[in-house]
């Protein structure tokens, strides 16, 4: 059975801390893994990873995929209160029908 598992389920840090969010997957015919940020309602796209070992970076956020070990990590450095959100990882199964993990709820305290 396909599955996407995220850890930890929740995390509370102080501003300025660095956090690492984990996503492991077992998806038939794996092609890519995506990270989303969900603040209130609509998940917003962060990264798509298709190749192993290549880091994607956007400002303080970065992500990398390990296709051999079937996991991805999302790093956030120098966290800010605006980073507080649920972070979701997803793997498409057929076309762009996404299989999501349960999410990691990040709270950044001033």
């Amino acid at each position, binding site marked *: 059975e396909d599955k996407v598992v995220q850890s930890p389920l929740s995390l509370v840090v102080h501003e300025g801390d660095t956090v690492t969010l984990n996503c492991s997957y077992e998806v038939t015919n794996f092609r890519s893994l995506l990270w989303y940020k969900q603040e209130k309602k609509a998940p917003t796209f962060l990264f798509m990873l298709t190749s192993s070992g290549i880091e994607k970076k956007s400002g303080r956020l970065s992500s990398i995929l390990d296709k051999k070990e079937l996991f991805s990590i999302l790093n956030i450095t120098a966290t800010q209160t605006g980073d507080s959100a649920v972070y979701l990882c997803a793997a498409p199964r057929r076309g762009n029908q996404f299989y999501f993990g*349960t999410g990691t709820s990040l709270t950044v305290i001033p």
Partner: protein
Amino acid sequence: DTGVTQSPTHLIKTRGQQVTLRCSPISGHKSVSWYQQVLGQGPQFIFQYYEKEERGRGNFPDRFSARQFPNYSSELNVNALLLGDSALYLCASSLDLRTVNEQFFGPGTRLTVL
């Protein structure tokens, strides 16, 4: 450029009732997908429509149905509501069935079943 819109934003129903949720995709997008997100969980895939045809269905009972109209907007219907149907229902649109990283989500409809 208008994003994905959904209506209504909130809805309260009682058990056994029926509900219709609506989604308008981004202009030019022909694919619409529906997801259910129960509190504390990630979104779960319900349906995908492309060019008015169902292209995928998740593991949901027959009480859930959907359709896509000629203008590519979509409706999700849920019959005989159960308490467990309380969730945020998200709609996502994309140009086609292949553009994985260009699938955009709407703000969702929060359904509460009492």
